[in-house]
Each structure stands twice: as structure tokens, then as C-alpha cells.
């Protein structure tokens, strides 16, 4: 079946429908990872967006359910150049088309994703519609497309109830136990954040995004982790207020991506929307304290404004080597550090996974 991707500026890309055939309007973003499409599809940070994969051959190794980063797929739509008709991998359990159908996610294949990416790069992230309907008159839909806004996505992705994990779960080793307890504030968390903590012997309690700080602190966790997540951070007013309290408690905190942005907002800094964001598995970030560069996995469309930082509260710890944007903050008054990139990887390189070790050390010291 023919399908169309209509951008708000009137660009139309024609392809073939994959997955669900329903019509959607979403924010169109692109990801440059060459592997890890399932991790991308199941990353809650993509809620409210439709993802374009710049790598043209998708689905080669099928779907390995254990690689899912959350219970379901989150993007509103999936845009690819070519979907492999054969999935070949020893762990392969399903093909991507049936997975998308089962998840009721519409997609389109046969799109010149490079041309699409260039449009997004030049004009910035914009909204688009994936549809199987042929609109004779685009003006019929462009206004509707333009008016779309990513909103309420944290509420959509966070867990509904508190849940605890201990080492041994999620395929980790039960014999590793460091005796530390981490409270994870789930604003759209990927599983591998939990796994990275369990692997180091922490027990983890995951809290829904709208939990009260008091509730979390009452459990006296050794450390608090704030996860990644979707959407505009400044929209999360309630969460930011609770984060301020968590910050003030003096409990060691490690935050990733949306968590990093929320912590910055909670302590008086500002965030802004980027032209087309960072989404991929090849972003160099530099630790300004050691000058070491790490290749990181990234997925964000907002960034902490460097000039909004109060150096008495937080200092830049990591910068993006490509564009110099803030990639990590070290807070001066409290044992808090936050990063914009994804040390938990999945997909992407594990070069910065050692940050979880640093978090563990931070918790041990503060004990």
C-alpha cells in the first residue's frame, strides 16, 4: 500500500506503508545509529515523535525481544529507506513489520531518508504526517500538521506504580551485591539504566514521575537516579518542583538526559529547543576535567543553555565536541552530577558506562 510522509512545509515523500496503516501526525526526527533500531523503537524518549533512521537497511537482524528498552514501542511513526525482507540473527524472533503492526505503529518505507534528513537539518525539526491517504490539496492538512505539539509525554511513558528490582533480575548476576539502594525517578526510563545499576549490585526502586520527593526520601535511598524521558523539559513543572527538594536533601543524585535537564531547571538554569537535536550513537563528548573524549549515544532535542548556568551551583563537566553544547553538569554544593548523553547506551557505545561506577562511589562516600 502506498503511504505518504507530508511535512508541515509541504514536502511530500512517497513510499510504502509498513506496520499499522492508521494516520498519524507527529514531530519528525532522525537518528543516525547504524544498529539498534529496536532499542530506538522502545526508547520512551521518542514518545510524541516519529523517527527516521538514516541508515538505509533496517530490520536485517529482526527483533530480539530481550533487547527492548521498555515494555512497548513509543514513537508515533517509523520512517525507513528499506526494510529487510529477511531477518537473520540467531536471536531473531520476529520481523519488524509484524512488530510494528502488533504495536499499532504506522511506518513508511522506500523514503529517500537522506533527502528527508537534509530537509530536517536545514529547516530544523518539524511536524509531519504519515498517511496512506492521498491528499489532493495539501493545505487541507498542513495547518493540522503545524498545530501538533508534543505534550504530556512524560505522563504517558512513566510507570504507574512503584516497583523494586534486585540484582539477579533483568539478566544480571544475583551474587553481586553492594548493599546500596537507588531510587530511580522514572520520567521515561530505559531498562538499561536499571540494568546498569543492578549489574553493580544496587537494589533499585522505580518511582513514577509524579511521586512526591518526601515519599522517595522517606525510604532513605543511598542515591537517586533520574532517568531519560521524552518531551519539553520545561513542561514538567510538577516534577521540577519535586526535584528541587531531592536536590536540597543532599542525597547523591545522578541524572541522565531529561533528568539532567530537569535538574538544571530545578536549580535555576534554562533549557532551549535545538534546531534538530542529537540523535545517534556517534556523538563525541569531552570531559572538560580530564580532556578525555567519549563516544556517546544521544537522543535529545532540548539542551541546557550554557549562559543560564550559575557557576556557584553547577559547572559544565562535559561538552559536545561537535557543537560545544552542554553535555554534563557537576553540581558544586551537592553530590549531584548529570549528563545529557546516555551512559547506559542501548543502542550505542558503552564508553561512558563507567559513570555508573562513579555514581556508586559517590553513594559509598556519602554513606
Amino acid at each position: 500500500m502506498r503511504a505518504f510522509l507530508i511535512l508541515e512545509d509541504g514536502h511530500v515523500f512517497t513510499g510504502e506503508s509498513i506496520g499499522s496503516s492508521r494516520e498519524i501526525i507527529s514531530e519528525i526526527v532522525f537518528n543516525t545509529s547504524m544498529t539498534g533500531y529496536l532499542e530506538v523503537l522502545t526508547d520512551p524518549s521518542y514518545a510524541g515523535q516519529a523517527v527516521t533512521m538514516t541508515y538505509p537497511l533496517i530490520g536485517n537482524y529482526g527483533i530480539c525481544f530481550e533487547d527492548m528498552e521498555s515494555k512497548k514501542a513509543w514513537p508515533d511513526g517509523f520512517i525507513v529507506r528499506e526494510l529487510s525482507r529477511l531477518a537473520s540473527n540467531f536471536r531473531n524472533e520476529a520481523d519488524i513489520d509484524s512488530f510494528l503492526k502488533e504495536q499499532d505503529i504506522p511506518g513508511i518505507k522506500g523514503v529517500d531518508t537522506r533527502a528527508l534528513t537534509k530537509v530536517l537539518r536545514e529547516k530544523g525539526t518539524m511536524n509531519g504526517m504519515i498517511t496512506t491517504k492521498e491528499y489532493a490539496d495539501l493545505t487541507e492538512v498542513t495547518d493540522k500538521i503545524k498545530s501538533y505539539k508534543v505534550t504530556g509525554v512524560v505522563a504517558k511513558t512513566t510507570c504507574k506504580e512503584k516497583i523494586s528490582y534486585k540484582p539477579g533480575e533483568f539478566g544480571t548476576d544475583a551474587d553481586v551485591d553492594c548493599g546500596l539502594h537507588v531510587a530511580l525517578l522514572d520520567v521515561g526510563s530505559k531498562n538499561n539504566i536499571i540494568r546498569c545499576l543492578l549489574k553493580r549490585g544496587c537494589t533499585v526502586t522505580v518511582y513514577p514521575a509524579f511521586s512526591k520527593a518526601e515519599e522517595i526520601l522517606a525510604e532513605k535511598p543511598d542515591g537517586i537516579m533520574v532517568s531519560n524521558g521524552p518531551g519539553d523539559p520545561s513542561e514538567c513543572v510538577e516534577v521540577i518542583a519535586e526535584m528541587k527538594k531531592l536536590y536540597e536533601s543532599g542525597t547523591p543524585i545522578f541524572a541522565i538526559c531529561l533528568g539532567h535537564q530537569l535538574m538544571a531547571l530545578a536549580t535555576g538554569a534554562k533549557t532551549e529547543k535545538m534546531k534538530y537535536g542529537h540523535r545517534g550513537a556517534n556523538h563525541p563528548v569531552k570531559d572538560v576535567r580530564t580532556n578525555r573524549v567519549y563516544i556517546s549515544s544521544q537522543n535529545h532535542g532540548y539542551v541546557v543553555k550554557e549562559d543560564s548556568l550559575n557557576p556557584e551551583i553547577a559547572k559544565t563537566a562535559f561538552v559536545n565536541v561537535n557543537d560545544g553544547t552542554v553535555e554534563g553538569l557537576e553540581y558544586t554544593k551537592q553530590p549531584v552530577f548529570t549528563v545529557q548523553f546516555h551512559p547506559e547506551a542501548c543502542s550505542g557505545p558503552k564508553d561512558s558506562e563507567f559513570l555508573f561506577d562513579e555514581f556508586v562511589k559517590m553513594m559509598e562516600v556519602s554513606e
Partner: protein
Amino acid sequence: MPRNKEIKKVLVIGSGPIVIGQAAEFDYAGTQACRSLKEEGVEVVLINSNPATIMTDKEIADKVYIEPLTPSFVRKVIRKEQPDSVLPTLGGQAALNIAMELEESGFLKRHNVKLIGTTSLTIKKAEDRLEFKNTMEKIHEPIAASIVVNNTEDAVAFANEIGYPVVIRPAYTLGGSGGGIADNEQELVDICANGLRLSRVGQCLIERCIAGWKEIEYEVMRDGNGNCITVCNMENLDPVGVHTGDSIVVAPSQTLADKEYQMLRSSALNIITELEITGGCNVQFALHPETFEYCVIEVNPRVSRSSALASKATGYPIAKVAAKIALGYTLDEIKNAITGKTYASFEPALDYCVVKIPRLPFDKFIQASRKLTTQMKATGEVMSICTNFEGGLMKAIRSLEQHVDSLDTGEFTELTKEEILNQLEVVDDRRIYVIAEAIRKGIANETIHEITKIDEWFIDKIQILVEMEQRLKNEELTVELLKEAKRLEFPDSVIARMSKKTEEQVKEMRYANDIIAAYKIVDTCAAEFEAHTPYYYSCFGSFNEVEEISNNKKILVLGSGPIRIGQGIEFDYCSVHSVWALKKAGYETIIVNNNPETVSTDFDIADKLYFEPLTAEDVESIVRMEKPDGAVVQFGGQTAIKLTQALMEMGVPILGTSAENVDAAEDRELFDAILEQCEIPRPSGHTVFTVDEALKAANELGYPVLVRPSYVLGGQGMHIAHSDKEVKEYIEIINVHTQEHPILVDKYLMGKEVEVDAVCDGSDILIPGIMEHIERAGVHSGDSISVYPTQSLKQCVLETIEEYTRRLAKALHVIGLINIQFIVYNDEVYVIEVNPRSSRTVPFISKVTGVPIVDLATEVILGKKITELGYSYGVHKRADFIAVKMPVFSFEKIRGADINLGPEMKSTGECLGVGKTFNEALHKAFVGSGIKGPINKKVILTVKDSDKEEIIEIGKRFKQLGYDIFATRGTSRVLNANGVLAFPINRIDEESPTLMDLLLDHRIDMVVNTPEKDGKVGDGFLIRRVAIETGVTCLTSLDTAKAALTSLETADHADISIINLAEVK
């Protein structure tokens, strides 16, 4: 970390002659690195024995020493030039080995020279089998169960313990030379004994056979601050068991999920960190196809063939970055030259699929075993880029220039299903075609996978191509079908053939429906950032990204495709120089080529680079897009010349010598008329098409005769026939592929061969130098030792040669380059071949005479006169020194290839010896080509009857040097009768001890064997093969043997000088 200011003068060690396993990729890497060093104000001193390289240009390095790559000569250069540092990581294994020797002996320390880019400890940890094993164990990186042995007994004991098959890998050798897989004890003993001999340190690794696992490579960079990145990973279509250089390789990996991808990536980073490499490194893995188990196969702590491929596949200039790292920069300080925005500390994101196919030399070595093993056999490779794998494969296949343009070669059509199943077991260069035929015959993909272990993903892609063939054959060619066929990169010729249309009809249908190639940019970042480098590849069904970059006139330069015997790196040298000269003259240059190993496909050589097959259709698509004002074809070898006609039909003016005149040189009748008109004699001959015509011609001329196809490369299919039977045989071989052009039968004259390259501006000629061959006529010019300036020719002969060259250049209306081969027979000069284009000897002559031949030819093509360019007509003044160009062979890599020299070219590369005297130059040439000096001082002489007279003098000279002579009965009888003591030795089929035992005993330095007859398998063949396989020098021409003796005699008179060729004007 900013640049280390203490580094002011760096010695860069090149990789020497092109051999299998060490090819043009090191010229690419070395050139890029030298330019990168000079950019930083570093004075670059270069040593490399290979004159066909761009890195040995005085524009690239400040001091150029074309000297043998041995520790002794490198020491001489260091003593003379006193560099503060040596950079050994750009010259492949050859350079690393030398650096190790200089470091270990304390020489570098004594002369206050630092190794940069690596340390001896790093080299040792990566290259020494035992150290490597220990290092990997230390960091818990798995390697296949293995043992390092110094003798075969230990190897057998270990194999009995872990079970067969086992893999044998000799330490410190090129391209896995001497290695292999043994299925039983006998094979193990054979391969291991040979490997021990070939290894520099007498070590072999015996390891668990992991054949059938996925083979995955990572290219990794690390700087002095410990920052690491991977440039890209690559997956071999051929599972472990085939050398990666002989495998079809795809980038990035296709069948790895992120978990496997990241697991191996982390491992590669872990390894480069532990080895403390500063620069580039290649890590090869075997990955179990059904589990997460993996093994590290090999680490190369330097730039390599794979790193050249990775650079071209991603746009990331590994060698350039490695050079900057060697100077102290960190990755985040080095700008990404493609985007100009990002830095070297990122990982390229590809938004296309890259396919590499090796170019194997079995068309040259018809008798050789085509089996692919862990020992590399390919002489070169092609790369293609497309948005899908199928298209990449189709493009790569036609880039090989092996008369194949699709998976349907017809070669296996006649085989039954049963035979195909058997054929699938054979691991050779035709395997993908066999797989395609298996699919056509209805064999299940699963079965094909079971047999070949090739991942089903790749087999499915081949099936998609086969399905398209069927559709084209069976369905109406609709616009939709045509679109899909083009998306899969079926060329018009194949579509036409399969759908029973003409190529014109297909093309018309395409244009009518706007089905045309679009071009995309290779930008390292999947379009995330704007790129400024016009590095393009084509695909169908996409938006075009080509932009106009200037208002200058555009000139298209066609490259020379994959490196193969007969068309080597020298044509890339010419193409690159032509591009540079055109740029200097203010033109916009566009280069088309498909060879990832070369300088010409570096993204900053031409203004625009199209990485595309060199076929008429692919070039036409570019021409339609770019509308060039002219094209230059005379620098890209036969590959480019063959496209002349097609370019003219597209309406592109050919700059320089016109197509009609190129034809005149190749068309026998036209050429004969020209010779007659010029009053130049040539050996008499005829053009024929059939066996009968050939026999008639041969008998008329009288035997021996020379039989060859016209329009050939490196004497391909050329034979000296002595009888009717041989004529028949050879004509049949030539006619295996349909000949568009006639076959030539000429009288064979056994004289002196002389070669000339000249530039002609339409009015007159400039001859930079005249060369003379050591071997008598009959040995291909590319396989002959060539001497400049001539040593034995009389002045009047030289004058005749100059005059004939002038007449021919004018008669053929040559504008640009012309190469002529003469035979001087009884002081008479005959013309045997004229090529109105660049030749193999152009780089060599440019360097030794200081005349920039290609630059001049390019200027002349653009309309300048030689005299306007600061040169005068006639023969350029003779140099003050003598240069000897020596062919270098890779026979030890090609099992079953006969090494005897003849009219068919067999050498893979060349080296140069430059000296104040002829003997000195000759000696250096021999040393540079890797021929060892006396070790055991034992030589075997066995020559055909007609050579018996000449062998006496040779025997005497060996005796004088203190050699013991062993000779077969006939030869020894002649020697002893003439007062030369020779020990008679039994022939192979006689009682032990025989010739073979002597060789296998590893106590012979050299064999001189002149074959009884051309190309016959027999005793002589066996002797030559065994000699080669046991690492013994084997010479098949008495002229070469005499030259070798001269070299050995000269070795005693030490105090050999070295010459900086950058000073030659």
C-alpha cells in the same frame, strides 16, 4: 594536547614494491600522511624502494630516497639525514619490521631518533604471537586456543590435543604468507615447516580452527590522551577461513544486532587501549554465528589495507589523522576535513552500504589453484557504494573488469543440481556465482547456508538479484520493473540481454521515464552536518545532491580501476598527477574510479570524486550530470582507453591524442601502413581471427612466432609458439572470450628490448630517457629488469630510436604521451609495440630524470608547447647516475602458478636501484626486490639444452663467489667438462637424494632453471614451485642470473652511497 614542537624532521618508511598483501593502500596512506606532516611544517624524509608511488614525489616529501627497504639502507638514510623521529606505521609490515630491528639493536637510541606513531613494545605486543596471546589473556579478550611453535613436532602434538583442522599462521609475514588450514598431520607438517622458514623469527602459531564463524573487523583510532574511536566496522560475506583481503566485505556490518556490534566494538577499544597504540589499528574478530562467543583473530597496529578501505568507505582519513596523532595532537583537536565543522573524535555514521570485492589474479595464472584460504591472493580490489546491498554488489562486480556484469555468468548453467551442490563446497573466487546458480536451480537458501556458512541475509540478497533476472527474462519490461532493476543496479546491457531488447531501447525507456542515476554525498555523518567535500556515489530512485562548485571548465579524468597484474599503481600515479596539473591550470577536475586503495580516490585530490564503476553506462550517467568540457583518458591505462569510443559517442571531446589515432596504433593494418609511411621496420606479422588463419601465418613467418590479442593488458594471452600445436592451443585460450579485435601473429626476434616514453606536443617530442632491458626479447617488458640510461647501445642506435619515436608520434598525431617498445637486433631497430598513452615506466623515468612527464603531457594536452614549459625537444640530458627497475613477483602467494618468465606479465610490482655505477644500481635493485644475499652459498643450476653453453660462464662466476653448485645430470656434465665443479644431483623421479630433497632441506640460496618449453607442467615446474614455496630465489632467465651475479659480486664492495632524488632536476 597541542603538537609536539620537538618533532621537526621525520623519516617516513614506505612499504616497498607492490606484492600481494601489500599494495597501493600504503601509497595512499603514506601520501596522505606525508602531506599531513608537511602541513604542520615538519620536514619529511622518505625512504621507499617503489618508484611507482606518489609518496616518493618531491612534491610529497622534502627528501626522497628510492633505496632498498632494508635495515642497512634505512640506517644509511638516518645517518645522512639525522631526523629526530621515525614514523613506521604507514609502510605496512615491511616498515614495522625494519623499525623493530633498528629499535631492538639500539641504533635509534644511539642516534637520538624517536619512534613516533607507535612504540616497539606496542609492535611486539601486537605482532609477536606469544606476546599477543599473553596480552589478550591479561585483558580477558578471548582468542582461539593456540600455541606458538618453533618446530613441527610441537605443532603436531598440539593438534593432536585440540583436534584437526588447525590454522597455521607464521609470525611477521605479509598477507598471511605461508599460512593455511591443515586437515591432517601431513598437511600440518608441510604448511608449518614452510611457515617456519618464511617467518622472520622462525615462529608459527597453531590455532583452533574457527572456520565458518562470522569475520568482523573494526578500524580503531587512539590518541596520546587515551581517546579512542572506531572509524567503522566491516563484515565479511565469506566466513572465517578466507583471508579478509580475498573476501567480499561489506561496511558497516549487516547481520549484527547492536548487542554484538557494541560487544566487539568495546573489545576493539579495550585492545587498542592495552596496546597503547597512538594512531590507527585494525582488529579482526571471529564471531560465533549462533552465540555471543567471539575470538580476536588478529591486530594490526598500523594503517592497513582494511584501513584504506575504511577510509574510503566512510570518508574518515585514517592515515592523515594517524600522522597528526603521531605529532602529539588529540582527536578532538583535529578537524574533520569533510565537514569542516566536526572533529576527528567522532564515529562516522554511514547512510549507505559499501561492498568490496577482491581482484584475484587467476586470469593471469590459469594453472594456479583458485582456492581461497587464509593466505591472501588478491592483487587489488574494487569498492562500490549504494543505498542497498544488492546494488553495491552489482556495481562491484562490473567494476572488476573481468567480462562479468551480473551474477549470471553462464559458467555454471550446464551443471546439474548435484554438481552445483558439490561446487558449493569449493571456496574460490566464483562462489557467489555458484550460489546464484544454486538458487536458480531451486536449492534452498538454508542448504546453501549449511554448506557455505555464509549468512542467510547475504544469500537472500543474492536471491533477490536472481529473482530480478527471472522477472526480466519472463515479464514484460514495464516502467515499474525497469525502475526496480535499476534500483538493484542492473546495468542496461544486462536488462537488455535478459528482456531481449537492445541496450539502446532500454536506455531510451529509462530516459523517457526519467529513470536516471542520482548522486549522493559521502559525508561521514549521514547528512547530520553539511559537508563540503564532493565525494559522490550513484543510486537510483533518489534526489540528486550534485552541485556546481565553480565556473571553471570541467575535465573528466578516468582512473584505472582495480590493481591487477599488468595495470598497477603506476596508472594511479599518472591519473593523480594529471588531476594536479589540470587543477593548476585552472580547470575543475572530476575523477571517476572504483579502487579504494589508491591516492586518486582520496577525497581531496580532484575537485569532485565519483566512486563508480568504469563502464560506459556508469560514466555516461556522470557525463549527463556534469557535462564536462573534455575528458582525459591517456593516464588511466587500458581501463580508461577502452572508454574512449563511448565518451566520443556521448559527445565528450577527448583531450590529447584522438581516438582514431589510438585505434591506429592497435589496428594492425592501419599501423603497418603508418610504419611503412614512416619507413620503420617491424618484425613481420599478420592479423588473424581463426586457428587456420593463425597456422597459415605462423608457417609463412617461420617459428618461433609471437601470438597475442590486440588491445591487451600486460601481455595477457601473449605466447611464444614454437609449433603448430602450440599455435592452436594459444589461439583457443585467447578465443575463450569473444574477441572484438583480431589476434596478432608476429615473427619473434631474440634481440635487446628498448623502451621509450615520450611527450609529443604535435610539433615535436621530448624523450626524458631511454631504457634498456636486461632480459632478451620474449620476456614481458613489465617483468624485465630495465636500466636507465641505456648501457649497451651505440649512439647511432639511440639516434635511430629518437628519430623513430619522433616519426611515430607525429604520424599518429600524438598529443600527450606515447610509449614505444623497440627491439634492437644486430644494431637494427624494430618497433614491436606502440601505446599512445601513459605507461608503467612513466613514474620511474619521471623520478630519475627529474622531468615531470605527466605534468608536461597534461599541459601539452591543454595546448602548450614543450618549449613553452621550459624543456627542449629531443632526448633529455642523461642523469649522472644509473637506475635499475626490478620486477617483483608474488609467486609464493599463488599456489600452482608457474613462475617462468615469458611474454605474459606476471610481476605484481617493482622496485628501483639507483647508483653511481651500473653495478651499484643493479645490486640495490636486487636487494630491494628482496632477493637474499649468500646464506648457505649453495646454488642449483638446471638449464635446457640450448642454454648449456651459456651456463658455463655463470657457473664460473658462482664458483668465484665461493658457491657450491648442484646441477642435474646434463647441466653438471657440461659444467664439469669445462672445469667448473658441480655436484650431479638426481631428478625428481629418480632415487633420493633428489633436487627436491635439497630444496626441502632448506640449504639452497638460489635456483637457476630455464624451462624447456613455454608453459608446460613437468619436472622444471615442480622445481620452480618448490623453490618458491620454500622461500628460495628462483631465476628462469640466464640474463637475470647474470645480473644477479653482478649484484652478488658488487655486494662485497661495500661503501654504497644513497641518493636523494628530490634534488634531481
